[in-house]
């Protein structure tokens, strides 16, 4: 068991960031950790940025993670990935979904949206453990683009195992059970496929 693992999830309202953090906090609990989660969701439905913290540890006090102390980063959107980059601990595990949701400031006020090359180059400056996945493409292949967040959770679970980051035994089945408890019955099979497809996306 590790002393503590600090997660940061970043996305845009409607991408399933909050569901993913709910899953993560419960996976930690199932692994025997103390776990806490904190988010701000006041205006998230209105297309704003959403960030959520999850912490696992032997003892967890603060529900928030201080800047520079994020061990595992999950970004659902590219501009949001960059916005939170400086919260990471050097060498942190970063999983970035290659989705772009252009805010109206890009479509109507002409602000620039960062390109993939810049994104990857900036992350390289902080960590060699950054991985990029097109969650929407994988989910679309399974027939429902909205399962992208579960694809990413699948990838994250495999990455954390690969890096020996969980500190305890956390078989995929535990993740899957916690996910399927949180989705409507008719989407259980889709989410199971999405999670497994996400796991296979790890190269």
């Amino acid at each position: 068991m590790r002393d503590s693992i600090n997660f940061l999830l970043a996305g845009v309202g409607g991408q399933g960031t909050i569901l993913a953090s709910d899953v993560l906090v419960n996976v930690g609990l199932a692994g025997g950790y103390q776990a806490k989660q904190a988010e701000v969701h006041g205006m998230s439905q209105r297309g704003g940025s959403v960030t959520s913290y999850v912490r696992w540890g032997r003892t967890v006090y603060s529900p928030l993670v201080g800047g520079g102390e994020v061990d595992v980063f999950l970004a659902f959107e590219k501009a949001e990935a960059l916005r939170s980059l400086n919260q990471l601990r050097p060498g942190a595990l970063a999983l970035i979904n290659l989705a772009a949701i252009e805010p109206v400031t890009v479509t109507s006020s002409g602000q620039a949206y960062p390109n993939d090359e810049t994104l990857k180059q900036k992350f390289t400056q902080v960590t060699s453990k950054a991985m990029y996945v097109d969650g929407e493409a994988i989910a679309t292949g399974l027939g429902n683009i909205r399962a992208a967040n579960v694809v990413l959770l699948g990838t994250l679970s495999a990455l954390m195992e690969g890096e020996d980051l969980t500190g305890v035994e956390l078989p995929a089945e535990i993740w899957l059970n916690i996910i399927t408890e949180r989705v409507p019955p008719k989407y259980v099979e889709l989410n199971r496929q999405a999670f497994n497809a996400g796991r296979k996306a790890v190269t």
Partner: protein
Amino acid sequence: MIKMLSGNEAVARGAWEAGAAVASAYPGTPSTEILEELARYPNVYAEWAPNEKVAVDVAIGAAYAGRRAMAVMKHVGLNVAADAFMYASMTGMEAGLVIVSADDPAMHSSQNEQDNRTFARFARVPCLEPSDSQEAKDMTIAAFGLSERFDTPVLMRLTTRICHSTSAVELGVAPDGQPLEAKPFPRNPAKYVMVPSNAVKRHPVIEQRMLDVAEFAESFPYNHIEQGERSLGILTAGVAYQYAREVFPKASILRLGMTWPLPARLISRFAESVERLIVIEELDPFIEEAVRLMGICVEGKSIFPLVGELDPRVVRESAIQAGLLPQSEHVPLPGVEVGPLPSRPPVLCPGCPHRSTFYVLNKLKVPVNGDIGCYTLGLIPPLSAIHSCGCMGASIAVAHGAVKAGSPERHVAVIGDSTFFHTGIPALINTVYNRSPVITIIMDNRVTGMTGHQDNPGTGRTLQGEETTPVEIEALVRACGIRQVKTVPAYAVKEIETTLREYLKLDEPAVLITQEPCVLLPEVRKRWVPLEVWADKCNGCGLCFRIGCPAILKSDELDAHLQRPKALIDAALCTGCEVCAQICPREAITFRAAEMSET
């Protein structure tokens, strides 16, 4: 049984375990989920009140009638409810009364970050501050006991990070047996009728009460010392305790579960047991100043910020600066220059029924006095059509005041349906009574939108799902004495513009009700039909970009003549509201198929 609960869910659970019978609230982030959750428990009556003052009066009435009661609001709601809060302190009640205030340090979704502990001191009321979900539940139960033991309302002060963080809670048992029946209403005018002759006798009673509570605070189990090293002692409360414990694992900590009144002897003993005493608290130096008044040497806001919320980093870096921690504790940030990133302000959703009105207001170039709700987002470019917004219900009276000051333009006030019920009605009456030609637009989207779709007096449904009589806004407006009133479908761009242009010629108060249910309501979502742009007709004039709809994108294809990008509609976002189709001068955007077949 252990369950992961948010602080809000834990407060609701605590209220239920404590046998609370009546709860009333007005929705407001970060407090909203408390009543939504409590409404699901058996044997609890829970309601949305039109505003927080009504909610507190309702809870007071229930507590006078001998049943445990709760009123819940965000911090600024207590400003609205202050009058009721103050008299409840004077009268006390027959059963426990808990007022929950959810403060919002850092103003994640608020207009200020006032620290409502000051309200407790001001009103002579005890204040409890939980530091996680477990305490949120346990202290809610304790609050009812405290309330009854000392015949006082109790203020539960939560903050965003307590309300919206999740941690493990050991659930207690349900209240046993049948709920108590309400007692006959007390005939005790000396206590419950606050005419001056009675009130003067009550004031010394409540001052003595607070001395008694202060004595009780000396042994209150949630005022708790964690004895550590003697070199540093920390006084702290609420979520700040978690940051303090994390950053100073070895220090001695006195965690105050009751932050008003303070246990003077306990604090004094603690202060004597340590070499250096500091306070770590969010926002005001509330504990710090009280402790200093006790004649104890203490530091607080000279080290930690007065503004915004704390987190482990803020606490640690402030402590390093003050020499409380060695420089080696510093956690460096990566410091990568990420370059300019597009800002992502919250915006009116695709298909939002408010968009068309702001498009017209922007075009008319009138000063617009706004109010609190989703429609405040009419401020964001390119709509840019809100010029003031301060608090719930302010719009109409601010417009009236500007007009009376001789503002040379016609003023428009915009206010949502729920905010109109909340505090807009008296201000509208004022425009009639005191004769000002303010144009009020009531944006009736048939729900309380910003806080996540709560019912309100206009929806015809209660918090606990019962059907009820919907208040008719147009009839209400007429009853206020407004002669010029019109209800228009909110997507009818031309009709809104024509009506407003007519109103601008009048010299009397007028009301336009723009009506259409929020596009995110489940029954409305079923009717979403994405529209399309006929690229051959679009010449890239850019007019549709001016409505600021997230579903309208700039296409990669340029118009051959103007060399400007054509419009493109994101089918995943478009709901088919047709506002863009109505304003397109080249008819290059499709209307919904059903309508097309009609025309």
